[in-house]
């Protein structure tokens, strides 16, 4: 059975982002990627005090009852994510699991008071999606500044790194994929 990446939109469905995202992820991880619609109860993840959504709660729903051919599951949402100890996160992933989630909320230029830039948003989303899926291949944060697995705290950090894995991370992805 051919394993595939399921990209699950949460709260929005912008084909101009999702279609190129699927194409790029398929190319990068060597397996087909497609959009899949799955009902996610976002209210369970909402924290009214913080006005944010708990990414761990959403991730748990995403990986519940995965399709048999699910190689990876990536949720993409448009609201602000957090994990309890941190003020915000761009995304979260299972280290050596199948699930990951990213949010475009803090990837948009508008969040920082700038002009909307669809192309830049697409690039940031692809980097963050690749980064979080990289964790599912048991990749840790990489010290190589250009590598997509380099840790990003600010959106500027995302802009500075490339969309590619460094040679060492690429090798580890291949090793993991062969398992």
């Amino acid at each position: 059975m051919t394993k595939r990446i399921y990209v699950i939109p949460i709260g929005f469905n912008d084909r101009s982002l999702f279609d190129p995202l699927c194409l790029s992820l398929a190319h990068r991880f060597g397996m087909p990627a497609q959009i899949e619609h799955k009902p996610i109860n976002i209210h369970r993840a909402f924290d009214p005090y913080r006005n944010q959504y708990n990414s761990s709660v959403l991730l748990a729903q995403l990986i519940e009852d995965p399709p048999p051919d699910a190689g990876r599951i990536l949720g993409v949402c448009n609201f602000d994510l957090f994990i309890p100890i941190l003020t915000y996160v761009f995304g979260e992933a299972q280290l050596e699991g199948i699930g990951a989630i990213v949010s475009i909320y803090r990837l948009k230029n508008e969040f920082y008071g700038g002009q909307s830039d669809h192309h830049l948003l697409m690039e940031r989303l692809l980097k963050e999606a690749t980064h979080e899926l990289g964790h599912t291949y048991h990749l840790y944060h990489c010290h190589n500044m250009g590598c997509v697995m380099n840790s990003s705290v600010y959106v500027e950090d995302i802009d500075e790194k490339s969309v590619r894995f460094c040679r060492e991370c690429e090798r580890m992805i291949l090793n993991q994929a062969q398992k």
Partner: protein
Amino acid sequence: MNNSDINILIVDDEFSVRDSLYKWFRSDGFNVDTAENAAAALEKFKSKNWDIVLLDIKMPGMDGIEFNRHIQSLNKNIIVIIITAYASVDTAVQSIKDGAFEYITKPIDPDNLTHVIRNAIEKRRLTRENLELRQKIEDLTSPDDIVGTSPQLRQVLKMVAAVAKTDSTVMIRGESGTGKELIARAIHSNSLRRYAPIISINCGALTDTLLESELFGHEKGSFTGADRLRIGKLERANNGTVFFDEIGNISMKMQMDLLRVLETKHFTRVGSDKPIAVDFRIISATNRDLERAVAEGHFREDLYFRLNVVTIDIPPLRERREDIPLLAQYFFNKYTQSMTKPIKEISAAAMNQLINYDWPGNVRELRNVIERAIVVCDGEVITPEDLSFPFSARSKQAIGDSLEAVEKNHIERILNRTNWQISQAAEILQIDRTTLYHKIKKYNLTKTM
């Protein structure tokens, strides 16, 4: 240091906090574990050395403040980062006072957490490096040349161990070459001052003016030739130890200057009137009879008592002959290794000579004899022929002051050295063979080895 080399323990009663911190640190490749309270964390302390502990303040049972104190009492090198939902300056100050590294309020800004952890790792790295360097210093300064098992030496080492723990001034007495400086270094390297320098001053080797400049330093232009500032040895020895070798040789003026420093703990550089505070321990050594020098008025009595709080007498080597084979073997191993010579051993006959010799130059002379023997030895074994005793006229076998006794001993020594090669011995003695035969008969000399 890789992230995987760093062990992080997260102690928090909230699962969501433990879980999210665990994931955060795991994605950075750290070695992470969690505990829901202090008791569970203590269990984890039994099985692993933790580098960094993230500790919640509000926990049921022992709280974070209390547990932090406990961790600090276990190991001050563990870096504790306090986390709490309640920003309170009092608790922050208290935990920092108790030795915590940092204090963060949750939810934490990712950037802040990254910085705190990066700083914590840097501190941990420096702490580890510091510990390693201290170990290296201890290895380098350990006086490994003190070798022997004789009761006399054991007594000296017992005194060294006892006096090292104190800050008392020590007077080391012993013949030349007995290892007075080694004993001084042993005291220093076992004392609380061991991470500061030990500065050695040979009082016998310097003139009064030079010694003054050497000890106190001088300001630029303070005298002709003082073209730059010189920091004196006392200043360099601050927090450490000053070892005055041959203290009995200093002039009355220097004795007075030194006494003043000892009493006031201050001195001034030559050419300056600015007092400089110093804190050092003094160990001095002499091979002179200082009591006699005091009685004769050559050494100040007040200085003598200041320097002589504890006395350590090092026995001459001839009074601890059982240490000679050990010392000989020690120097043999040391020099064959450093000279990379394929010499296997010291022969029994050579060792016998070493044991029976009187060693007026003590351990230093023994070391030199062994070193020279290794240089001249062509074979695999050091034989009596390889040994050369510069003061052999004073050896055990050469007792007697008469001319005949000295002549007998000298001829016997040359014969032994040449392995009774009569022609060679006669040539060295600058007498003819017949005369040598005559003398051998006269003194009833026989080949013993």
